[in-house]
C-alpha cells in the first residue's frame, strides 16, 4: 500500500433525510453528505453506525447519489440486531458514516453492459445504471431479482429491449430510460417467474455474435446467485465482475476480518472485501 491511499475516506456526520419501509423488512435510507454524493463510484459502500447501543458499524452499498442536493440512498434489509436498530432511526437523526470505501465496479468500454442485482445486492447495480444512463455509447440491460416484494412498485415499461420475456420495471430505471427485467420465483405480477440467470440467458440468446462480444456482466447479490451468474458468464465467455459482502470490522484493510478466498496467478489468496474489493473478477472467486 502506498501513501497515495492516504486520506481517501472521510468520517461524516450525516443527517437522515428520509427513511422508508418496504415489504420484507426492506428500507431505503437517504442521508446527507455532499462529499459522499460527489465521490462515490458504483460498487463502493459506506460503513455506518447503526445505533448508540451497537458499536460495530455495518457496511452498506450506495444505491444512488444526488450530487445537486448532497444526498445518497442506501437500501438494506433487516437481517440481525444491527440492522434492526438502524431501522429505528428517524428523519433528522444524525448517523456517523465512513466512506466512500472500496474498489467499485470498473465500467469497461463493452457497449452492452448486463447488470444483474439480487435482493439487497440491487444497489450497486442501480448505481452503475445511474452512472451510464446518459452515455449513448452504452446499451445496458438491468435484471433485478427479489424473493420478497421489490422495494419499489414495479410498473409497466415503455422501453424496448430484445429480451423475449417482457416484464415490469423499476420506476427510476424507466425515468433514466434504462431497459430492465424483473425476476422472482414468487409469481409477482409483471415479474418473470424464474431466476435472474434464466432471464439473462434469454436476453443473451437474442444477441448476435458481435453483440455478445460487447457484453460485460456486473453483478451483486446473494452468494448462490453470484455463483450462478459467474457460471453463466463463463458459459458465454463474458467478462464478469461481482461485488461481495462479508462480516466486516474496520473497513479500511487493517484487521483482515472480511476476507474472501480468491485465485491469483500465485495461487490462492485471502483478499479483504473492504479495500481489495468489494468488487472482484467473478472467475477469481468462483472457479
Amino acid at each position: 500500500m502506498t501513501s497515495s491511499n492516504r486520506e481517501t475516506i472521510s468520517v461524516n456526520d450525516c443527517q437522515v433525510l428520509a427513511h422508508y419501509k418496504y415489504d420484507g423488512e426492506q428500507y431505503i435510507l437517504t442521508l446527507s453528505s455532499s462529499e459522499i454524493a460527489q465521490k462515490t463510484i458504483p460498487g463502493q459502500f459506506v460503513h455506518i453506525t447503526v445505533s448508540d447501543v451497537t458499536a460495530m458499524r455495518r457496511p452498506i452499498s450506495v444505491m444512488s447519489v444526488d450530487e445537486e442536493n448532497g444526498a445518497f440512498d442506501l437500501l438494506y434489509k433487516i437481517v440481525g440486531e444491527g440492522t434492526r436498530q438502524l431501522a429505528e432511526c428517524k428523519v433528522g437523526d444524525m448517523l456517523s458514516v465512513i466512506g466512500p470505501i472500496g474498489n467499485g465496479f470498473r465500467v469497461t468500454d463493452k457497449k452492452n453492459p448486463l447488470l444483474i442485482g439480487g435482493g439487497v445486492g440491487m444497489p450497486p447495480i442501480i448505481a452503475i445504471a445511474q452512472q451510464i444512463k446518459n452515455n449513448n455509447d452504452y446499451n445496458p440491460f438491468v435484471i433485478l431479482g427479489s424473493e420478497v416484494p421489490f422495494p419499489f412498485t414495479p410498473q409497466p415499461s415503455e422501453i424496448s429491449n430484445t429480451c423475449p420475456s417482457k416484464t415490469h420495471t423499476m420506476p427510476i430505471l424507466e425515468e433514466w430510460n434504462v431497459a430492465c427485467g424483473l425476476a422472482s420465483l414468487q409469481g409477482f405480477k409483471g415479474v418473470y417467474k424464474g431466476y435472474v440467470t434464466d432471464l439473462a440467458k434469454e436476453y443473451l440468446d437474442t444477441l448476435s455474435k458481435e453483440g455478445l462480444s460487447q457484453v460485460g456482466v456486473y453483478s451483486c447479490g446473494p452468494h448462490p446467485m453470484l455463483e450462478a451468474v459467474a457460471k453463466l458468464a463463463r458459459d458465454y465467455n463474458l467478462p464478469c465482475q461481482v461485488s461481495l459482502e462479508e462480516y466486516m470490522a474496520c473497513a479500511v484493510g487493517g484487521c483482515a476480518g472480511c476476507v474472501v478466498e480468491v485465485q491469483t496467478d500465485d495461487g490462492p489468496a485471502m483478499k479483504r472485501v473492504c479495500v481489495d474489493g468489494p468488487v472482484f473478477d467473478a472467475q477469481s472467486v468462483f472457479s
Partner: protein
Amino acid sequence: MQNNLQTSFCGMSLNSPIILLSGCVGFGEEYTRIKGFSNTKVGAVCLKGTTLEPRLGNKPHRIAETANGMLNSIGLQNPGTEIVIDEIMPSLKKNETKFIINISGSSVEEYGEIAKHFDDTDIDAVEINISCPNVKEGGVAFGNDPEMSFRVVEICRKNTTKPIITKLSPNQTDIAKNAARCIDAGSDGLAVINTVTGMAVDIETRKPVIGNNRGGLSGPSIKPIALLKVHQVYQVSKKYNIPIIGQGGITSANDALEFIIAGAATIGVGTALFYDPLVCEKINTGISQYLSDQSLSGVGSLVGTLQLN
C-alpha cells in the same frame, strides 16, 4: 500533541501513551486512508502478527459481533518475515511514530529465528505473541505455560537487542506467575491482555459463527477482566520496573486512565478504532486534561496509583 502525553516506554520516547494494537491496524498505513487519522497522534503502532513463512489465515467468517465486543479469528494472515522486512518495512513512515513488530512462531526456535531477522532492521521493538488463541500450533499453547513462555522469551532475548514486549494471555490460571517468568527471561515490557477465547453459535445452522469455531473476544466486554489482569501483573512487574501496555476494551480516556491507575504505563487501542477511527485524538485530549486537572506532570506520575479498599 500535548506535552504531558510524552511517555517513556521500554527505552522508547513516545508521543502519546497510546499504542495501536497488533492485528487491528494492518502494517500501519491502512488507517491513514481516513481523513483526520494520523500515526503521529499515537506513541507506537504494533504491526500485524508476523510468522517466518507466509500464512493465508483462517477461513471466513473471521469475525462476529457480540454484546459490547467482537470475536475474531484471523489466524495470523501475513506475508511472512522476509516480505515484511524487504517490502513493507522500507515504506514505514518512521518519522511519524514508533513501530513494533509482533512475532509469532509454531516452535521456540521459530520465535528465535524471527527475532533474529528483525534485529537487523530499524524496527523500534519486538512484541512476542505467545497468546494468539487462533492458531493450531504455538500461540496460546506457549502463553498458558509459564515455562514455555520463559523459553520463548529467552531465545528471543538471545537473538535481539531490541526492546522485547511479551503479550500475555488472559486464558490462564495465574497470569502474574507467567509474567514473572517472562521477566526472568529478559522481557523489557509486558502487554496485558490478549483476547479472551470465546464462541458464538448460529442457531439456524447450529454451527459456530466463526469459521475456526472459536475466536478471541475483544472490546468493552473484556475491560474488567483486562483491568484486573493488569493490576495482578503490576504487583510483579513493578518490583523489576518492567512497564505494562494495558489493553482490553479501551474506548475512551476514562478507560485509559483506569488502566494507568491499575498499573499500565501505556495503553493499547484496537477494537475501539472499529467504532470510531478518530478515537485516539479524543483519548489523548481526555488524558491530557485529566493530568492537568490533577496537577500531574505526566502519565508516569499516575501509573499504579491504585489504592485498594
